[in-house]
């Protein structure tokens, strides 16, 4: 029997108290595509980082061509002809594509970037990429950057390729192109691991599927012999009916009206394009979409943290009955208008909380301005901290413990608890249950529901469609920065939402540009 190109046996890796991988085993043959499937936070990326030498496993072994291998650094990984395409591109911004591609290589002969560029063009032609080797990375779009990453690995002639969520940033057309490349590489006898949480892609491209769940290895299946239901069950565990209590919205009133919103990112690319919707009091509005479709920018724009290029955000104040435009206002100005807006951001310790401060001081973040004294009033935040610890069952030695020492679920309870304590009229939560265990997740769902029932307009950005469907009243779907649909969560199906997520008004336009780009490349 043939020896696997790469085989992992009982790999375990911990970070402090967090077990990222526990006794994971899998193998890939030459000329085979293995899909590594798992939800966000199931330990896929950590596992692959150990193969590519970024992390070193605590225990377990890695075999390459049947022999035990020590991959202590990315250099070792290269020596074993392992190439990884990271989700977050590992490129030097001020270098050209060609410079990035040869970076770290020890080639024979003199160093000649012209020769490198020629070879890059050769590879591009062979696989149908479009790339200018002399273009600087900081001038490139996301998909161009990914192309550079892939060419980098091909240039090095890697035999084992790992792609971490490669399709997350790609349009459907680009994804198809990528898959075509992968098939060609597979035919050339390369072993390929593709990390993803998208089932249809798994079924389309892979030969085998290995499933991880919360750092545990669940099993490997032959793709041809399995189906979506089985994989889903392995990925999420027993098919649990979420049984989230959902009440009918009462006393629905317009609370937040977003109108024709456009947002440009730093590179001048539109991340939100003509977004309009209304959030009502007493309901949970879900926002679904592929990660990075503009959800973060939308919430940050409402919170006053993003510059808006076009459009308006109106807030109807339930107490005064007045309507305020939140456009071009700073977070402080928004608060001074009397808008009680709470926001649970995606980046909990990088934005919502300060990791090095204790729970009390993190409570202060929202309330420290209270009063005219130049000094901080820690009394109220202290009792708030203690109340949250008690009510939400936060596991912590004391209220004086730095937040960074708490586990993910407890961090989130502290953050959500604080935001709710501000008695908001609008509550925005971005991926509030990401990385949380089941119990903590339910705590969060219940909190959101309670807020809705007390008349708050809740906006919930989520990634798990089951949760969105069971928790929300309406679901707004974003695809590539545009609203592709707003559906009734009580009647919508997962498939329907999934289709809206990949749909884009721009799809046709993009195709057009692409063919033009192609012609352009041919003309050169």
């Amino acid at each position: 029997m043939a020896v696997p190109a790469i085989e992992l046996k009982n790999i375990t890796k911990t970070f402090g108290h967090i077990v990222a991988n526990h006794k994971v085993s899998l193998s890939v043959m030459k000329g085979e595509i293995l899909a590594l499937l798992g939800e966000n936070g199931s330990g896929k990326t950590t596992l692959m980082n150990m193969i590519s030498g970024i992390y070193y496993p605590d225990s377990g072994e890695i075999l390459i061509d049947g022999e035990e291998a020590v991959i202590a650094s990315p250099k070792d990984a290269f020596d074993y002809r392992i190439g990884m395409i990271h989700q977050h591109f590992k490129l030097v911004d001020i270098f050209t594509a060609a410079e990035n591609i040869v970076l770290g290589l020890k080639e024979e002969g003199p160093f000649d970037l012209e020769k490198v560029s020629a070879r890059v063009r050769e590879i591009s032609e062979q696989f149908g990429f479009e790339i200018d080797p002399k273009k600087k990375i900081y001038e490139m779009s996301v998909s161009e950057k990914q192309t550079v990453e892939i060419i980098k690995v091909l240039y090095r002639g890697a035999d084992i390729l790992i792609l971490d969520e490669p399709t997350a940033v790609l349009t459907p057309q680009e994804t198809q192109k990528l898959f075509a490349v992968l098939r060609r590489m597979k035919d050339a006898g390369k072993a390929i691991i593709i990390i993803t949480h998208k089932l249809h892609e798994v079924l389309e491209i892979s030969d085998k599927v290995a499933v991880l769940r919360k750092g545990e290895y669940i099993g490997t299946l032959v793709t041809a012999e399995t189906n979506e239901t089985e994989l889903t069950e392995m990925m999420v565990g027993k098919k649990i009916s979420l049984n989230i209590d959902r009440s009918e919205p009462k006393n629905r009133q317009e609370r937040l009206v977003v109108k024709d919103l456009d947002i440009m990112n730093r590179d001048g690319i539109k991340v939100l394009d003509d977004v309009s919707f209304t959030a009502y009091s007493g309901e949970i509005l879900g926002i679904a979409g592929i990660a990075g479709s503009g959800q973060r920018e939308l919430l940050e724009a409402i919170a006053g943290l993003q510059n808006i290029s076009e459009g308006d955000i109106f807030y109807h104040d339930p107490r005064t009955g007045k309507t305020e435009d939140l456009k071009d206002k700073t977070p402080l100005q928004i608060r001074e208008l009397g808008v009680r807006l709470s926001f649970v951001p995606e980046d909990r310790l990088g934005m919502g909380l300060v990791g090095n401060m204790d729970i009390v001081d993190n409570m202060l973040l929202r309330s420290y301005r209270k009063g005219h004294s130049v000094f901080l009033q820690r009394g109220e935040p202290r009792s708030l901290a203690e109340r949250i610890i008690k009510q939400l069952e936060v596991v912590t030695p004391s209220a004086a413990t730095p937040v960074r020492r708490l586990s993910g679920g407890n961090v989130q309870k502290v953050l959500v608890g604080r935001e709710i304590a501000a008695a908001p009229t609008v509550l925005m939560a971005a991926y509030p249950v990401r990385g949380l265990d089941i119990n903590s997740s339910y705590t969060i769902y219940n909190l959101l529901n309670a807020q809705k029932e007390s008349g708050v307009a809740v906006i919930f950005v989520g990634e798990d469609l089951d949760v969105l469907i069971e928790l929300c009243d309406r679901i707004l779907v974003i695809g590539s920065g545009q609203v592709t649909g707003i559906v009734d969560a009580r009647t919508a199906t997962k498939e329907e939402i999934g289709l809206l997520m990949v749909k884009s008004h721009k799809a046709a336009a993009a195709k057009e540009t692409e063919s033009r780009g192609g012609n352009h490349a041919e003309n050169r």
Partner: protein
Amino acid sequence: MQKTDKTVREPLVHITKRPDMPLFPALLIRLCAILLALIICALIIFWLTGLNPLAVYKAMFEGSFSSTRKIWNFLQNTAMLLCIALAVTPAFRMRFWNLGAEGQVLVGGLASAAVMFYVRDSWPSWLLILVMLISALAAGIVWAGVPALFKANFGTNETLFTLMMNYVAIQLVTFFIAVWVPTGSGVLGVLNQQSQNGWLPAVFNQRYGLNVLIVGILTVVMFIYLRYSKHGYEISVVGESENTARYIGVNVKGVIIRTVVLSGAVAGLAGFLLMAGAAHTVTAELAGGNGFTAVLVSWLAKFNPLTMILTSMLIVFLQKGSGEIAQAFRLSSNISEIMTGIILFFIIGCEFFIRYRINFRKKAEEEK
């Protein structure tokens, strides 16, 4: 590309980040580092001079504490170093690397000297002192504020900017001395020697009394400001994460400028105290490198003003002590800089063992 020859083994050491080290072991590590440094210094002294290191350390102690005058000198030096360290601290807590304290102190001293030089005896002493103080603070604020403005608006690298400002300040001082002293001697000399107009009055019957008192009060005030005031809280939040600061509606640019201006003002005050309370003149060496040493004092104390009392004492003790050795054993007084350097290296280095854990390969698995 056959890898068969490669002996397969785990890496020898593997470094991981510690979750957190309790206070006591962390203190123990630091203490060990200082002890180790002192032993190495002792060896070097022994090697260079053949003297008994213990006798040398005893002499060092005497250098700071053997007479009332020495104790007050020690306190004055500590107070000045501490004051400059207090100046840089608010900026550091915000991760604004203000390496320009030397220059900020100098322009502070220069501004007060300028006032004294032009006014001489024509104003009453209290008015003169007040104007000197205000101009010193203003000078310090300008010197720190300019880099802060550019940092806040254009992201100009503050480390390099403030560093360069030091040398502009030094040249500015020599420039004014040259203007004021037409003979070209380059020495301004003590101002108002006769009248002592504009000199800080003696407190506790000591000429440095007021300096020590002011810095003592300032230390406590700074501690309270950083820990218990809203401003101090904003500084911490901006330092920890600008994103969080923006999220809670802090005007990040404003806080940067406000804090660095405070930093400059305190440095200006240090310049004023050095000028009006001690030297009564200005030279390019007024700060005597303390602007840089203060960076170390503040960093060693983890930016805690109260701990800084100890760290500044340690540094001054080393400086004074080695000066004493130099005299007693006819060594060059520059040995103090060498010893300070060695001790700093050890304290700087030992932080690694507090922040990281080193895992050695298990011996049993070494041979296959």
